[in-house]
């Protein structure tokens, strides 16, 4: 079913997000210019469930080829699909999925970092998304996300449901730089209409972040577990106009209660993870971005050119 009645006059929130998105297109004095480049990458999306007595685990392993076209000035065009390689999750996971095809723009107003994204996101969603991060001091920051999304299915059949759901979350972050430890508390309304709270404790190591989380959803109840984000080598890279590389990170999330739809939110960036956060390192120097960078990027120089 496709809903076509979406008037901006009756949707002030959408109008506001669109205005922000368009306004973000204006050159910002705060944004650092980055060399335009195209990154082509792939990784593995690794999932497993422990819900049957008769099998050890059910696995879902997908290849995740994607691209990021950094157009400069923090504009980015991203795309990603997922192909199942091993699927024990069932029929609905046996097709390829478009998990990103969107354009985004990061910008900064004083210390407030904003990122607006429009297009297709993960979990078969598309629409508009706005993320905000406001550091108040070295150790405390507010964060928020708001989205207006519909559903889109590309395979095995085409289906488009017009945007009809507001989602969002708001919370605070505490970062203890001496121990590279971060605490996050978030409240929000999520993709399946549930409202919930989540508390996360993260310890950032060299190239790895391990976190414990506990959460409550009004539809799914309590849950908890751990997450691991490993930034993948090589850690020294040369920056060319076109870069073919492995995915920047490998991420896994373990849930004790296996509530896969609890507090579920789409990802707008194909390589989004808890360690890197939503914003570029050069725009936001807070939290794990104050640690040594995972990737040392060396600009490629021509043979006759002195470095």
């Amino acid at each position, binding site marked *: 079913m496709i809903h076509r009645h979406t008037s901006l006059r009756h949707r002030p929130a959408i109008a506001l997000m669109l205005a922000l998105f368009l306004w973000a297109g204006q050159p910002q004095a705060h944004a650092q210019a980055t060399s335009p480049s195209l990154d082509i990458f792939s990784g593995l999306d690794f999932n497993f469930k422990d819900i049957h007595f008769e*099998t050890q685990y059910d696995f879902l392993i997908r290849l995740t080829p994607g691209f990021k076209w950094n157009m400069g000035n923090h504009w980015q065009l991203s795309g990603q699909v997922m192909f199942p390689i091993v699927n024990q999750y069932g029929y609905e996971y046996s097709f390829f999925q478009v998990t990103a095809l969107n354009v985004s723009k990061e910008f900064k107003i004083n210390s407030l970092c904003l990122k607006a994204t429009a297009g297709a996101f993960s979990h078969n969603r598309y629409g508009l998304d706005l993320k905000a991060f406001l550091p108040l001091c070295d150790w405390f920051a507010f964060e928020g996300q708001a989205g207006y999304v519909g559903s889109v299915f590309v395979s095995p059949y085409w289906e488009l449901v017009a945007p009809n759901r507001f989602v969002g979350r708001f919370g605070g972050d505490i970062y203890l730089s001496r121990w590279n430890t971060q605490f996050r508390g978030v409240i929000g309304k999520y993709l399946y209409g549930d409202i919930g709270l989540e508390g996360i404790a993260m310890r950032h*190591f060299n190239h790895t972040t*391990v976190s414990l989380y506990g959460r409550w959803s009004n539809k799914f109840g309590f849950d*908890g577990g751990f997450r691991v984000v490993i930034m993948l080598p090589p850690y020294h890279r040369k920056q060319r106009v076109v870069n073919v590389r492995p995915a920047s990170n490998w991420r896994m999330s373990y849930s004790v209660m296996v509530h896969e739809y609890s507090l579920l939110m789409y990802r707008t960036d194909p390589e989004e993870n808890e360690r890197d956060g939503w914003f570029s390192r050069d725009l936001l120097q807070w939290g794990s971005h104050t640690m040594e960078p995972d990737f040392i990027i060396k600009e490629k120089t021509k043979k006759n050119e002195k470095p």
Partner: protein
Amino acid sequence: MKNLNLIIVLIALWLLPQLGKAQQFTGTSGLAHIPTGEMNHEGDALIGGHFLNKAMMPDTGFLYEGEKYHTFNYYVALAPFSWIEMSYVCTERIYRKDAQGNIVNWSKDRYASVKIRPLKEGKYYPAVAIGCNDVWTSFALFADKPNVQFYFQNWYIAATKHFEFSGNELGLTLAYRHFYRGYNAKWNGIVGGITFRPAFFPQARLMAEYTGNDFLLSMDMLLWQHLRLQATVKDFKYFYGGACLQFNLLGKKYRY
């Protein structure tokens, strides 16, 4: 069967001269079966498995048609700070056998362990650690199902002091442990052990311990800074042991 046990003991003894800080079968630091006051290094991450002899398994839960059986577990563990360790362990259980007696399916028992060290070892006092296996049930966070079993659930307090002489290291551990289930009561109460780390090969550690019910002789060592091995013999008859890969996520290198 006696010959098989003898061979296993000989293999364990052969490993002796070749064979750091051990992991117990829970993935956390300790001796072979009892906890200690010492901790893994900050940032240490472990992934490994243990062969579990039926002689060291709980007297219920791991029975098939009334018979105890050997099994194994696997785990991941992390010491995010120098004063805390966490691990997540899955122990395999036989779920079904076919008519010929071959195992068709395994199921698993899952639990998480936490160990905290409030007192670091000093010159005149021992390190003291407290901890528990099966945290969910220990704190009844997810224990709303009456049929949930807590095969390995226990809490403990352990103190360990090390003494050095001629570069060798002698460690003494005393602990009090309490298992939740009555069928594990044999391991309740005061337990303890002695460790010896030779100066000429500090990566290895010899251990003798009393679990409340059994006397265990064990050895563990860290090879190439990443491979940790442990071998244990109960009553010179029953072998169990395991191996794990160890990485320090802060990039530090330790000999043991």
